[in-house]
């Protein structure tokens, strides 16, 4: 893996801390230097100002090892830290995470946990040296470890209970709104979902995850590995699919789930009809504005491997925009890229966009400037205008070069705060249209 200009993710520990901050009443215990917890919390917070959460940022217990611990080992410090944490911090689940330093010096965490002994609440360990992977990898590993160490295996499954995975807190900035909406939609067809991260969830939902009959993974690359492992250990079937945005994608998504679970088709049809009907009643009344002005834009989508294609699909299939470029900003293996390419090939685009894997912000702009005809000097040429960038706030410069709008959909999101808003599902599709049009009329 090469160096990266302005990477749009952090390290494995960063992803794990973001994820733990969103789990109900969970206390991380970092074994490492004092800065890891503070800085990585500051990083995940840039997913729309996610904030520290219940026990994030400077609240996270951290063994804060120093130079002498690097030489003599940090085990004793960690034991003290764990014991003190149980005295001070009030949680339902405690998770020890390691860092680059403690992985390099090789502290034996499992041995330390044995020495610490039984506590009144469960305590897990996940090996999270930052150099082992990025934040998305950390998320995947954590889900896998929760199943391996914490979630009981259940032989009898609940027919209509599913778990939803694939969205990484902070690094998928709209994860809360998206999960809430998908949970709502699944409830309409009689399916209960454990999301782990929405506010209705408790440790009971996590513990009950072993009773689910389906793991739904909303990402082609972040989560499938865990779902496959869980199929072996817990016997839970999986559905690897994409984040559904807007009417078409969401209807398709619900049918995928319905088929997997063998739901009553009539009931599903009825529920979906009502949702679609309501959706288009909103679109109906937006059309007065849309039809009177040319709001059909050329778009550039810049996002992670989970979200880039779903946004591009929405723009083309749902609202009839022309997506010129899709940039995926994660560092991916060739195998992961192929998984993405396959989904890309299956999407029916009116005009097929260019799919580019590019981690560097500067190179994204450079790519468009070097390849788009509007930057070449002929009298008449196809302009990329009006343009709209669906990317990160750090793509503002590109939006300026294209003289277009910018909607921050991907990490880091700095120019807006994200609370309950989501872009997934029916409501999310409406939210997205609302924001795309508002972006073009806000000067009125």
């Amino acid at each position, binding site marked *: *893996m*090469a*160096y*990266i*200009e*302005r*990477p749009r*993710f*952090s390290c494995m*520990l*960063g992803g794990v801390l973001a994820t733990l901050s969103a789990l109900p*009443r969970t*206390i991380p215990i*970092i074994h490492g*230097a*004092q*800065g890891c*917890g*503070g*800085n*990585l*919390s*500051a*990083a995940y*917070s*840039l997913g729309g100002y996610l904030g520290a959460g*219940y*026990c994030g940022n*400077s*609240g*996270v*217990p951290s063994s*804060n*090892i*120093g*130079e002498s*611990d*690097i030489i003599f080992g940090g085990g004793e410090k960690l034991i*003290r*830290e764990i014991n*003190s*944490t149980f*005295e*001070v*911090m009030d949680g339902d689940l405690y998770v020890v995470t390691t860092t*680059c*330093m403690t992985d*390099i*010096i090789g502290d034996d965490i499992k041995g330390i946990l044995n020495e610490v002994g039984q506590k009144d609440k469960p305590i897990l360990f996940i090996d999270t*040296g*930052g*150099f*082992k*992977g*990025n934040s998305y990898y950390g998320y995947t590993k954590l889900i896998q470890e929760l199943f391996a160490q914490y979630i009981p295996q259940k032989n009898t499954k609940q027919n209509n209970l599913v778990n939803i995975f694939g969205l990484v807190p902070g690094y998928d900035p709209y994860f809360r709104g998206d999960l809430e909406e998908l949970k709502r939609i699944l409830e309409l067809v009689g399916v209960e979902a454990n999301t782990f991260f929405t506010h209705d969830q408790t440790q009971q939902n996590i513990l009950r995850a072993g009773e689910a009959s389906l793991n739904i993974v909303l990402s082609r690359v972040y989560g499938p590995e865990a779902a496959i492992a869980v199929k072996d250990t817990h016997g839970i079937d999986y559905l690897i699919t994409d984040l559904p945005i807007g009417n078409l994608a969401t209807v398709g998504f619900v049918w995928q789930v319905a088929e997997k679970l063998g739901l009553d088709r009539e009931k599903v049809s009825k529920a979906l009809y009502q949702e679609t009907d309501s959706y288009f009643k909103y679109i109906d009344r937006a059309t007065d504005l849309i039809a009177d002005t040319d709001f059909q834009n050329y778009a550039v989508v810049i996002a992670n491997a989970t979200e880039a294609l779903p946004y591009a699909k929405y723009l083309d299939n749902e609202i009839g925009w022309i997506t010129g470029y899709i940039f995926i900003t994660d560092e991916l293996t060739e195998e992961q890229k192929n998984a993405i390419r396959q989904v890309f090939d299956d999407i029916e685009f009116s005009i097929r966009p260019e799919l580019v894997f590019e981690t560097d912000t*500067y190179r994204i702009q450079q790519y468009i400037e070097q390849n788009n005809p509007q930057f070449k000097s002929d009298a008449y040429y196809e302009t990329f205008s009006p343009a709209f960038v669906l990317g990160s*706030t*750090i793509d503002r410069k590109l939006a300026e070069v294209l003289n277009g709008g910018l909607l921050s959909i991907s990490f*880091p999101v*700095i120019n807006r705060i994200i609370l309950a808003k989501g872009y997934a599902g029916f409501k999310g599709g409406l939210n997205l249209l609302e924001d795309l049009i508002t972006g073009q009329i806000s000067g009125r």
Partner: protein
Amino acid sequence: MIFDVNFDSKNPQSREVSRRTGFAYGGCTSRLTRCAEKGCLNNCDRNFTQATFCQMMVSTLISFSVKDSVVIMHGPVGCGSQSHIIDFSIKAYGASRGVKMEGARWFSTNLNEADVISGGETKLKETILDADRRFRPTAIFVLLSCTPAIIGDDIDDVIKQLQSDVTATLVPLHCPGFKAKVFSSAYDVVYHGILQKFNFEPIPYVDYYPFNKDDKDYEQKVQQYEYKKSRTVNLYNAWSIGPADEAEIRRLLEAIGLNVQIFVEFKEPDQWRMITQAALNVSFCHVHDLYFLEFLKQKFNMPYILPNIPIGIGSTGKFIMEIAEFFGLEKEAEKLIAREKEKLEKALVPIKEKVKGKKVLISGGYLRIGTTGLLAKEIGMEVVGFRNFNYDSFGNKLFDEIEETIGDVSNSISTQPSELLNVLRKLKPDMAVSHPGIGVWVTKAGIPSITLFAQRFPIFGYKGAYDLSRRLARTLSNSNYARNLGENVHLPFKEDWYEKDPYYYIVDKNTDIE
């Protein structure tokens, strides 16, 4: 005061070594200052610790604020990954200083498991060359994080090899987080890199045209220049200091007849060559720049003074007066201060009525919280406690004054929310003034908090004193947000923790300080 420096060494020692700076203490002001004086504050540690900043994170601040720089985080991809947020700040606050900044341009060398085994120097070289080619920056700061520091990457050697191949000046910053508990050590690290790699004297025919000796006005021109230099003072800014602060202190110093130059942020390194063209160096906040001022004194014989940060009426007056004394401008300063104070005092009357007797707790860097406390006292508030991020004997001049004027109140060295929340229950302040990252915990406890600093707001000088007072009063006038939050949010601390001493986990080996 304890201050061990060696500018010739590869990298500076952490402040817990060079200044015996403490990072853990709980008690009151008098014992804190006595302990700092004896140099034994760094004997305190904790048996329960929470995450905080590291010196690498703090090192990014000046590095990004140098005009048209590039910052390379040499480490795994998480180190420095919070830096996106800096982009908007340096652009916006550069613009309000009249400086067009390029924004935060940075790389991660993205070290992985294979690099940990084989070393990260090759990746660093590639990154430096590409950063220089892509952006043609003025300087490239290479920040050494924990991992490459442990595996033994030699960034100095890499820089030595590459310097002749690039246009930017390459600056090594030895800032692995584990090497310093006192994260303000970062300022010494950054200035050490700067003082090793840049010049601070103007170059003839580049920065100026030397006067012609045959010119009939030669003597007069030299005298004019020397006179101007003898009336020029350098101030040193920092991340926490805003454009309005700089403008206000510049206004006051110019009013007594001085020329003001401000360094090092929002300037190109080339402009730093004018640093020596002044008679005196003064820090706005010497927690940041003392290391550099001492270097300039040793190398260029430039004197410096260390007044307290100019927040509040008294501290601003003293800041101006200490500088005026150096230049023999006491009378001018006295007049100015009297005039400014009179105007301000009138304006503060209605504010004082609103905040009278209200209790405030202040957290952050020691100079800023101390002077902010004095301002609160000046407008009639009751300061119930101070929470220093770090502390050493350079704060004693200020905190001795505080003990006298405010009293021997609760005082600690702490970044820990556990201690903060516990102390809040005991001190029951009406509001808090908190360093960024801390206010969220205060607000969750149902107590309103405003930020200790933000470049958006004027804080220094008389204008700043008025504005900060006004914001304190405004915050107190409606605390519903905090109240609602406090009533509905759950904090991650066990109920019996609040019954313990807030400093229960502090291990203080200093039994003899009384």
